[in-house]
């Protein structure tokens, strides 16, 4: 991984890629004369099929998780990173465990309730948060996905962690230039057409059955959301400069370059307050096809590796994949930490999680989920520590805490038993 030149990346081609204005929203509050807390950003990174446990979790009592082979690359931001152990989800038996791992990760929906879909799905954390905070930013939320497989042979559940609700996927962007367009391109609203089709849709709705009416609401919501976004983005760019970033080209990218570019777009979006909520799939869950890890110089099926990890040679490959993803995650954190905002850095004003819906890929357990949280959320959460939760603490407790920190005022999240007090300062 020496080939990655972080410094060069941070500076960008022009040497000033990250030169965005520090926004006035962080200036002193005119009434209290006290510095306002910068707006908090929420991001959740998903890495598929867990991590090799004995390279990820330190032994009981050892808090030096940054020396674990998989996590070493986090050292550069080590004092701003926390490991949480003991979090679990409940797997609904008899259904596909990988599908559940990804599609239910961020909703951690109650597995015992009545299923509205094949898996216990629900509106996911990112959207519950966006419901509350999206008024602050031109873009409601970003759903990013670094699935570089051209074939879509596997299910929708494996490829998505962000859902508006059961069976209603929040389509993720996989193409960096599409993300770029979304962040930087303004266009005039086609209000004539939008008004027309919304009126037509409203008439149309009268001719539908009850169930279909609900489905059509997805259409209404989508069209309205687009309109709101165009308007907000235009307003935003009439007051703010665009970040100096080259539009992603068409050329082939290595696996690392691809993820890095998507990470950079995320950082730019956060830095410019274009959005405060994002999800980021480093790779899809399971996905049978082998894929090329250019930087690691091999082509392997990540899923296949997890099943073969009983074999030391296979395990070595798998650890490399784990390290690869953690390094790329670490790079995003480093970039965020290099951006000053008032008295802290962008990372300090964020809460960025890296996790997986499986404890490890070999035995498919959903207990002891690997979870790393970075950024102190404006100093509200502990960093640089290992937080050991009692065994089988619901993952929903972490989501509840995060939802509360993001200001949703929620008191319960799915099957949560309470916020994760030990994480809070």
């Amino acid at each position, binding site marked *: 991984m020496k080939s990655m030149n972080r410094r060069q990346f941070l500076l960008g081609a022009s040497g000033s890629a990250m030169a965005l204005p520090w926004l006035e929203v962080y200036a002193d509050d005119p009434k209290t004369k006290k510095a306002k807390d910068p707006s908090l950003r929420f991001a959740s990174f998903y890495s598929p099929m867990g991590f090799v446990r004995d390279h990820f979790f330190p032994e009981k009592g050892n808090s030096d998780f940054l020396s674990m082979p998989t996590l070493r690359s986090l050292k550069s931001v080590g004092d701003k990173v926390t490991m949480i152990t003991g979090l679990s989800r409940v*797997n609904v038996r*008899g259904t*596909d*465990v990988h*599908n559940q791992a990804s599609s239910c990760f961020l909703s951690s929906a109650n597995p015992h309730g009545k299923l509205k879909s*094949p898996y216990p799905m629900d509106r996911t954390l990112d959207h519950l948060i966006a419901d509350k905070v999206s008024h602050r930013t031109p873009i409601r939320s970003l*759903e990013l996905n670094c699935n570089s*497989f*051209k*074939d*879509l*042979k*596997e*299910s*929708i559940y494996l490829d998505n962690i962000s859902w508006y609700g059961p*069976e*209603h*996927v*929040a*389509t*993720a*962007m996989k193409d960096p230039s599409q993300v770029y367009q979304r962040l930087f391109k303004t266009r005039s609203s086609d209000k*004539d*057409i939008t008004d*027309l*089709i919304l*009126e*037509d*849709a409203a*008439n*149309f709705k009268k*001719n*539908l*059955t009850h*169930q*279909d009416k609900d*489905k*059509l609401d*997805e*259409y209404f*919501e*989508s*069209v309205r*959301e*687009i309109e709101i*976004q165009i308007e907000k983005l235009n307003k935003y760019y009439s007051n703010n400069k665009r970040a100096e970033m080259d539009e992603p080209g068409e050329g082939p990218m290595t696996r690392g370059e691809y993820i890095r570019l998507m990470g950079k777009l995320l950082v730019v979006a956060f830095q410019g307050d274009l959005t405060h909520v994002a999800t980021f799939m480093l790779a899809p869950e399971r996905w*049978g*096809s*082998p894929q090329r890890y250019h930087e690691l110089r091999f*082509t392997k099926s990540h899923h*296949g590796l997890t*099943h*073969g*990890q*009983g*074999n030391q040679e296979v395990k070595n490959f798998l650890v490399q994949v784990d390290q690869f993803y953690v390094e790329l995650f670490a790079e995003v954190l480093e970039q965020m930490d290099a951006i000053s905002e008032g008295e802290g850095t962008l990372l300090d004003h964020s809460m960025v999680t890296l996790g997986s819906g499986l404890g490890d890929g*070999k*035995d*498919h*357990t959903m207990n002891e989920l690997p979870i790393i949280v970075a950024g102190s959320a404006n100093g509200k959460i502990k960093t640089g520590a290992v937080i050991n939760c009692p065994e089988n603490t619901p993952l929903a407790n972490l989501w509840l805490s995060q939802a509360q920190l993001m200001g949703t005022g929620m008191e319960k999240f799915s099957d949560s038993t309470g916020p994760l007090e030990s994480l809070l300062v």
Partner: protein
Amino acid sequence: MARLALATALLASSSALGKKTSGPLTDFKKGIKPVLEKHCYHCHGREKTKGKVNLSALTSWKDFESNPLLIEKMIEALDKNEMPPEEETQPSETQRQFILVELNKAFQNALLQGGNQPVIPLRLRRMNRFEYGNAVRDLFNLKSWVYSINDRIIRDHNNYFRPESRKMPKVVSVGNRIMGLQQMLENRLLGVMAFPKDPPAENGFNNRGDHLSFSPLLMESFLELSRSIVNAENFDENCRVWDTLFQDPLIKKPGTPKGSIDVDRSVATRNSGLSISAWIRPEKTGDHWQTIVRREDSWRRQLLAIGRTGDTWGLWLGAGIAGQYEEFGAPVDRKLLGDGEWHHVAGTFDGKKITLYLDGKQIGRKALVGKLEMQSTGEMAVGAHGNEPFHGGLDDIRIFRSGLDRTQIENLVAKVQDVAKEEMVGSWRTPEEVIPTLQEPIEKIAHQRIDKFLLKAFRSPADKKTLNLYAGYFDKQYKETGDFTRSMKDVVSAALASPRFICVHNEIDEASPNQKSFNLATRLALFLWSSIPDNELLELAEGGKLQDSAVLDKQVDRMLNHLRVKNFCDSFAPQWLKLNNVVSASPDFKTHREYYFGGDDKISYKRGMHMMLEPLLNFETVFIEDRPIMELVDSDFTYRSHLLSEWYQGRAATYPINVNLRNINFTRTPLEDRRYGGVITNGAVMVMTSGPFRSLPITRGSWVSSVIFNDPPQPPPDDVPDLRADDETLKKEGLTVRQKLKQHSSNIQCASCHQKIDPLGFVLENYDLLGRWREDYRTGLKVDASGKLFGKHEFKDVVGFKDAVLAEKEVFAKAFIGHLLSYALGRELTLADRIAAGEIADASKKDHYRMRSVIKNVAIHPIFSQLTKS
């Protein structure tokens, strides 16, 4: 997805289920209970409740009937001899059959409780991108594709797909989209980007309503598409409905006169020859061919053109005569034709000779005895064909269904009225003469056009409110810009973004008169064409006639004969067979270099590119030739490229890197060797069910179980240890993968499921990971492919297995129908659908499960047509 797995498994279940099983149930305590007590309660009741099934708790038929899922599970387990387990005492065959019949009755009762099961209507969903592209293409009758997408695998390069012919040609020239960009370079709208590929449902299709939802991101794509389509720089020239939709009635269309002639159908059925007469004023007289008129109809195409072929520059007539395409030309002085004056040209064929005329004088003649042949009554293009457009003026073109004589031609030149009027089947005049003043206000013309357009786009008539909305938009835009075409494009663009277009929908009956008919037209078109209904369907719907079962019957036949049915084959077949998995299959490059051809380690082509086409062509053959679907399992023919034939014979033919990848000839190969043929035993299936180093029998078994028997295995338990079946380990242990697996699945919990899928996978072990036949493994140990199907049919090898499947053809048919029905309905099947699937299977059996009957029986069954049975 247990629910899905089970529900679909049931469809596939036993032949016993096919039996008519009405009649009262026997007394529970005297009839079934003693048998259950003896053979089942031991594990499923009292002390143990294996699989969480407690049968002793069910003490009456009523208890059973409240649990149809359990009954189904029992029927399946009993019929496939999965229960009681092998090592336990078995009930007698009579007892087994007795219980099956009883359970089946109970199941029917359970389903019928609460009256007739309501038919679940088609749910609202958006179109997937394959359907959307087809719908737009058909809406504007485009000459091009809308966008190039990889959803279609086969590219047809010699018009081999002709369903009405009921015969696949011996040689088909095809490409595979994964062979790279060459395949994607097809005529398409420029700058139009498709939205991302829709995900397939597990063990299902990508038209599933529950997966096709909206999001702002997708909606943005739809809005963008609605604009980019009509604004594409080559949209205008590719739009065949231009004249009746976008063309400003007040101005002459720019450029050379182009148009089309709709010919009377009688030309195909009642012709004694052909005559084409035209006035031309060429502006160019180069060597390049210039089309006066032309109609595509394979080798029966007809044309009149000028240009040079060989040494002759002149006038040419082409037509299909006596079984082949004939083209005859007569030399003409090109200076004369290019003198800027109007000239009359004509070509005739009267069954005995072709004659060509210039300005009423015969300039060439060729004796040719035979019948003029044609099938398509599609339109004739005027002044245009590919890159052979006519430069200059064309006017007064007339088509006749007989060979006119010299006097008649002279009369045409002399502009005598009504020459051979009764023989004329089509004509065209340059539009400028007809236009000058409008009979009606231009807005009224626009509104009429919009009304007609909306009917087609929305698949049901626009009510007053809707029409006013779009017509009002036109008026506003036209008032502002004065640009008719621009304003019409704006209206069309808005309609393309309306949910009425984007969504597949079923409007409530009150929405308009004959709404039921319109809904049915849409469902039929989506199912059989992956597109919107054509004019004929809409006309029938408008007249409320589509629900007439005789009309419906005829329409389904027509649709199955229509070229658009290619969309069905393109969409259903590869998804059913999960063929896309071949694309991502990656046999190890170092140890299996022979899988890759024509290149080096950076650029190379996979043999899988050829392999994918074989099962697809076999599927299409069964469809086009309306063969029994059992030939999907066992056929006496197959389609292979040279590369594939060599491959199966153990020869890895190599090709240079610049090998032709665009159009590959696949030749129909008669098969005596039953180890090949059909859609199962071919390279594609073997490669995609193998890992990089070895074949994966469990993956193969799971494929056979899911695809062929529509019975996807339950997901494996969460903690399966690695099999460790690499060559090295096996060699050390002296085991075959089969023996190794037996050790591995000795766990009772795993064993019951493996008992089912293992034989289905091991039977294919004679094919190595690259699809080549082998008797022995690389370790030297012999392949053991023997097994038993459903615990009844023993087989030694794959040929025996095919016999076993054929012996259970009802099971295969029901499984296939289950897939088809789920595709047709765009949803996961439910228990209640099982009865319908059974009825469809029964109806198709009479016709030996011929492919088209099977499809037709789905389309006309009430569950799909929603017609009440008469």
